[in-house]
């Protein structure tokens, strides 16, 4: 997503999901489905305006992000206090590990399999896009199609894990682990990112249990700490590598 320049759009999709989930509190609709509908609508709207108006995707994304956040806040404000204190509302906004049901695990596995099938089917085109979007486009690769597929998969992932981390923090679990390992290993980034994401989740649950803090926020905090550690350790490794190089050159 970062390489494709779709990061801001993902951030927007995550907040559109939050808006959808918040609206579901007052509209009494299924939260995940509403979140998914909102996130898909936001993604498609951004892409449509980007293609039609020629305005930068980032500008439209940030506009949609602000709009989504505003909808979320208004929906929360308008929700009856009884509903707001309900378990469902609490899960949507703040997240809970209890939201991980067998059905959700099946959905996540389905999502992972779908992603694997997609990546294996279009490996060369995806590699080409990740390497250089403009060059891939100049060579006739269908950039719009692949960007849309990736956004749809992201929207699905966000909708599924929404209740785990809560709407406010869902993006951190998608973004932080991947960026944490980016500078350490470009090639093994997908695998290491998944491992760091899993570790963040595990640590978050443990810390949350011992300190009685909200699970979603604690997992996000762990993911942020992982990101800081990843960036710091890669800088330290680079520093030592440069020092070794200087010593080698001077001798």
């Amino acid at each position, binding site marked *: 997503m970062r390489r494709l320049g779709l990061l801001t759009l993902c951030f927007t999709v995550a907040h559109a999901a939050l808006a959808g989930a918040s609206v579901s509190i007052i509209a009494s609709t299924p939260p995940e489905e509403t979140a998914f509908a909102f996130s898909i609508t936001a993604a498609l709207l951004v892409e449509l305006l980007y293609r039609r108006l020629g305005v930068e995707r980032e500008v439209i994304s940030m506009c949609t992000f602000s709009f989504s956040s505003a909808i979320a806040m208004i929906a929360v404000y308008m929700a009856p206090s009884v509903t707001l204190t309900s378990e469902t509302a609490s899960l949507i906004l703040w997240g809970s590990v209890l939201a991980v049901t067998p059905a959700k695990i099946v959905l996540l596995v389905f999502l992972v399999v779908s992603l694997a099938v997609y990546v294996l089917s279009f490996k060369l085109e995806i590699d080409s896009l990740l390497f250089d979007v403009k060059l891939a486009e100049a060579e006739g*690769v269908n950039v719009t199609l692949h960007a849309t597929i990736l956004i749809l998969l992201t929207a699905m992932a966000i909708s599924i894990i929404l209740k785990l981390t809560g709407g406010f923090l869902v993006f951190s679990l998608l973004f932080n682990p991947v960026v944490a390992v980016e500078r350490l290993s470009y090639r093994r980034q997908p695998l290491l990112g998944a491992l760091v994401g899993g570790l963040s989740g595990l640590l978050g649950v443990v810390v949350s249990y011992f300190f009685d803090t909200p699970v979603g926020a604690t997992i996000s905090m762990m993911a942020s700490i992982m990101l800081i550690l990843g960036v710091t350790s890669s800088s330290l490794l680079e520093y030592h590598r440069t020092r070794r190089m200087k010593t080698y050159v001077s001798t």
Partner: protein
Amino acid sequence: MWGFRKNSRGIGEDTCRVPNREDSSGVAVLLSNVSTAYPRSKNPALINVSLEVEYNTLTLITGPNGAGKTTLLELILGFLKPLTGVIRVLGFKMPKDSRKVRMLSGYLMQDFMKSPRETYTVMQVVSMGLAAYKGPLTPLNEKDLEAVRWAIKAVGLEGLEEKPIGILSGGQQQRAFLARVLVRKPKLILLDEPFSSLDPEGRKTISEIIDNVRRKLKSTVIVVSHDISPIIEYADKVVEMKSGRIVGVR
């Protein structure tokens, strides 16, 4: 050295990857009174440009910075829309049929340098040139890989196939991107400043490769460059541009 030897296999034996689709006009690229501007720009980037590039020829486009040379290539590939005028490329109307034209073209970009952290190997990067021709679950076959190896050899990067492109010098990266153009066996080759990172010997070599390839593949080549001296001996036409206008054709 170029892989065009008799009995050599791979790209050298073939014509273009896609069937010849020459229109009766005999003109591969036609721009008629074309003007264009970049979004939010106050001034037009090209003003009433008219140009005809015949099939199987090598055209050089030269001029100072800001003359509109790269803009012209972006128009040909459909990245920019014309404000006025008509553009036809390989018989297709642009920018409506951009994707069809792009499938038939090979493009060497001006801004090609990759970060030292880029880990895709030379072999992988050149293979990516075939991405648009491959359907789902269709990996590269032995013939494709042979063509990739040929293209790498043709640009003088033999032995560097498994090196990450990010650690290569600017000149070597430029050769790798040229190999990516060649492996596509394009009907139309668009090269934007192909000599910018090359030493004099490299410029001469690359000029010879370009000329060899266009003759073998019967491709139409448009080269945009400040420095046309390495390739001028192979050119059929030289177009001079200045301030968004064509000021001379010889």
